[in-house]
């Protein structure tokens, strides 16, 4: 191997790909998309923020209005027992209601009328729809006020019994606390939902990246063959040098893209954070998870944070890097061999299917990982080299034994070496075979052929 020549090949392959418009487009669009996804809840919150709703209350019961407390979003205005019907009307007319709304400058008037000793009818008059969220908040507030009234009434009818205390004693809301016993003998809360999502994202991402960059290698091989530039090249460098130079060049393109993606996403999030305020960013997730705003469930967020804290991101990043690189190298050499056997992209399908099949099987198993991370199909999928990059990576959030990871990596690397050798043999012959469509039988023949 002539290293200085391989370097020249790598440089051309790299610069050629990196300067392409499609590369620039994906590199700059993906972080925008990704950051957008991260920011979506906070954006919705910011954009959905409105002027507080002014609600006029006409309370004929007299006991509800003192219980209503205004908030940032809803401001209650006590209108006393204002008569909403004009003279000679049995029910309020539209004109009268409009006049009242504008006179008090409120968005809605809520009329509360006692039905019997304990029940209340609540009617909201408004020109514009109040919206589900506001409606629910008001409804909840009125219900609680009525509930409180009923408790007080019950208590006064049954002296010596405190109903609110009794209700508190009766109410049950039992949560299941999932505790995991760790290898370091720690016992900590586990949130398998987060792990499942992370597992699926990792599996899918690796599948996508391997397909994308191996496809790049293959079309680059085909381009050289179909444009006939290859024979000039192999008279200057060894075919093997050309093949590996190409594979390494595209690997560097991938690394560049990943790095830019991470940097750009972080940059966009940071800028957006400054613009929107970090509090909005942090708080948005919590509020978004609980749109009614009735309960601020901080414990769920706390558990997500603690789960994410449990995951070893350094290890995850290292695993992603190793499985991407070796998975990519394995498939890229096979794809290069396939590319060498054909003269245009259309002819690749027949040869490509048997190769993409294991990759797809890997992806399907990785989806299964989140349901049953300990099942034997997932175990074997993460061990067998052709599916292992995707499946093992999807297992990583569930903390697989280190020995499993090491064995699967060693098997992957050895398989890569074997297939790189076989592919180089196919490539050497295939790349100079013109004018004839090659089948799998031909590829086997080329492997057996002595140089």
């Amino acid at each position, binding site marked *: 191997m002539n290293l200085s020549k391989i370097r020249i090949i790598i440089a051309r392959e790299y610069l050629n790909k990196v300067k392409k418009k499609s590369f620039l487009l994906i590199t700059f669009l993906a972080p925008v998309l990704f950051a957008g996804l991260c920011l979506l809840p906070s954006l919705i919150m910011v954009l959905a923020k409105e002027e507080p709703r002014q609600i006029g209350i006409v309370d004929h019961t007299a006991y509800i209005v003192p219980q209503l407390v205004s908030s940032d979003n809803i401001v209650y205005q006590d209108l006393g027992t204002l008569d909403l019907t004009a003279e000679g009307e049995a029910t309020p007319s539209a004109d009268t209601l409009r006049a009242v709304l504008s006179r008090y400058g409120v968005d809605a008037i809520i009329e509360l009328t006692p039905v019997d000793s304990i029940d209340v009818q609540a009617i909201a008059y408004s020109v514009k729809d109040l919206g589900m969220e506001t409606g629910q908040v008001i409804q909840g507030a009125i219900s609680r006020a009525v509930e409180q009234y009923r408790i007080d009434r019950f208590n006064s009818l049954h002296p010596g019994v405190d109903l609110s205390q009794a209700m508190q004693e009766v109410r049950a809301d039992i949560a299941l606390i999932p505790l995991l016993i760790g290898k370091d003998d720690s016992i900590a809360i586990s949130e398998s939902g987060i792990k499942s999502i992370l597992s699926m994202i990792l599996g899918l991402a690796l599948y996508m990246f391997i397909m994308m960059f191996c496809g790049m290698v293959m079309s680059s091989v085909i381009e050289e063959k179909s444009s006939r530039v290859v024979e000039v090249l192999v008279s200057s460098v060894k075919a093997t040098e050309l093949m590996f130079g190409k594979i390494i060049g595209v690997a560097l393109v991938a690394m560049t893209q990943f790095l830019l993606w991470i940097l750009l996403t972080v940059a966009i999030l940071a800028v957006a954070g400054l613009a929107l305020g970090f509090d909005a960013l942090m708080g948005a997730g919590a509020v978004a998870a609980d749109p009614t705003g009735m309960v601020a469930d901080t414990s769920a967020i706390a558990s997500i944070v603690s789960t994410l804290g449990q995951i070893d991101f350094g290890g995850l990043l290292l695993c992603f890097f190793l499985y991407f690189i070796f998975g990519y190298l394995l498939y890229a050499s096979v794809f290069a061999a396939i590319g060498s056997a054909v003269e245009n992209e259309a002819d690749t399908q027949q040869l490509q299917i048997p190769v993409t099949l294991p990759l797809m099987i890997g992806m399907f198993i990785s989806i299964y990982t989140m349901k049953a991370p300990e099942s034997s199909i997932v175990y074997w999928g993460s061990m067998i080299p052709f599916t292992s990059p995707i499946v093992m990576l999807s297992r990583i959030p569930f903390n697989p034994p280190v020995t499993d990871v090491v064995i699967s990596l060693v098997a992957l690397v050895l398989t890569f070496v074997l297939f790189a050798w076989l592919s180089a043999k196919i490539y050497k012959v295939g790349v100079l075979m013109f004018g004839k469509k090659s089948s799998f039988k031909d590829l086997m023949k080329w492997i057996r*052929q*002595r140089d």
Partner: protein
Amino acid sequence: MAIIEIQNVSKKFGPKTALSDVSLSIPEGRIFGLLGPNGAGKTTLIRIINRITIPTGGTVLFQGRPITDADVAKIGYLPEERGLYRKMKVGDQAMYLAQLKGMRRADAQRELRAWFERFGILDWWGKKVEELSKGMAQKFQFITTVVHKPSLMILDEPFSGFDPVNAELIRQEILRLKAEGATVILSTHNMESVEELCDEIALINKSRLVVTGGTDEIRRRHGEDNTEIEFTAEGALERSRCVVPRTEVNAKLSELIAAGASIHRLEEVIPRMNDIFIKLVTEEGN
């Protein structure tokens, strides 16, 4: 001295024999024609010299030593199946190919610019290859083949696709490179070019070497040893020609002169390369 010595080279692809026991000597500083019908094994032989293909048997010597990968940098190869990266800029591509042949960046830049200038195509430097016409691309490709000053050039069908003006330009360049001391292996079906350019030839047919030697010598050897006489008979308005065996020339001349004819030209009949090619290849076939 021979720059390339091919000794008993054979090549098998599985059961198929592409070359069988070929021995050739290519002298330094000459233009050597490699002839043969399609599928005879010329490309395989060229690829073996280039070390793209490793022979099944036999050895290739370069300047007296077994050829190594380092020697390949001293070879410039213009394959028959040639092409360029269509989307790449002409200048970048020339630099890339020159560097792959082991040229340093600065040298490559300087030499390439000199060649571009000589061919009057310096303004192509920043263009993409796909913007060039076929002839233009071939001219550019010829430069990339010779820019690293190879001591041996292997040109496979260098004239195909060229118009007569550009074909002549390339022909002159080949002769100029020869004058500078380079050796050229010329593989072509254009027999006129062979007669005009090649000092020596080898004819390969059905994976075997049929004949090799000096071009003139081979042409003579395959001649019927005849002489053509051009004359005007007495009282005739137009010239006539007749062909006679060399041994009968004197007798024929005396006869014509006695009859009052005037003799214009007397020339040995040398067969065209084209005829020799067809004769040798069809004889082989029978």
